[in-house]
């Protein structure tokens, strides 16, 4: 399964953050690259949803749904800036 991109989790991010997020700029805590979340490298088939930095491949965000609750780990993101 090839990875997709952040557009594919626009709906999931809308649910988690309560706003349209694909144009929000995320900064990678590892390499410092800043890009719209639409450009994330997204794996839907991992256990949970895994989003990686397109520049360095670091994991920026993991979303797991358990018992109807979304658990979000966004430690790989240094910043989120509205477009």
């Amino acid at each position, binding site marked *: 399964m090839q990875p997709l991109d952040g557009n594919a989790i626009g709906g999931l991010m809308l649910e988690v953050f309560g706003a349209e997020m694909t*144009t929000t700029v995320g900064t990678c805590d590892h390499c410092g690259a800043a890009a719209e979340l*639409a450009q994330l490298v997204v794996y839907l088939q991992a256990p949970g949803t895994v989003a990686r930095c397109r520049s360095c491949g670091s994991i920026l965000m993991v979303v797991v749904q358990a018992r109807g609750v979304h658990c979000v780990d966004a430690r790989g993101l240094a910043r989120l800036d509205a477009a």
Partner: protein
Amino acid sequence: MAEVVGETPRVRTIVLDVPDWDGHSAGQHLDVRLTAEDGYQAEREYSIASAPGEPVSITVERLEDGEVSPYLTEELRAGDGIEIRGPIGGYFVWGPEAGGPLLLVAGGSGVVPLRSMLRHRQQTGSDVPVRLLYSSRTLDDVIYREELDGAADGVEVTLTLTRAQPPGWTGYSRRVDAELLADVAWAAAEDAHAFVCGPTSFVEAVAGGLVELGYPARRVKTERFGATGS
């Protein structure tokens, strides 16, 4: 569901009647959620095929091992209800105010959001010049073929048929490569907006090729899709 339109043997456009739809932008998508009797849910994203202001429609390709697309393309009947969420996305969108020229590059059903952009351009009377490069397996797999044949002034459509070509075919017959892009794409100096949508490998090849031609990465917007059946 209001109406279903056959596009190709495997592709249907499903026109929806959505109460309280607040409108959408060309290029956005929506989520479709199906719930089985036992409560099992499957959710997929589909690009919106219609222009802003038109009834919301999605164009769905039937995947043989899919969980959602066979239902949408084979089972769903006019009057049936489905659960949707949207519109979604603000990155892969175009409006006439963004200007042009516009380069649209589609692999397979990646043409769907680009078709919304084309219809939006036409309906708003925009004269932004457009080139659409559409890669399809065969001529029969070309979605919106009639509509693209009659494309409006200022829209140039180039097809490449990668698997089989009809007798007498004089168009391209290979996967999109650097040389093909150089033939069809606007020169980098034109400062075109590029929108590339298709399977991941297609998008990577095209986006990389455009950057090699001198397109700034920020001018190349990408949307990747893939079969997400487990």
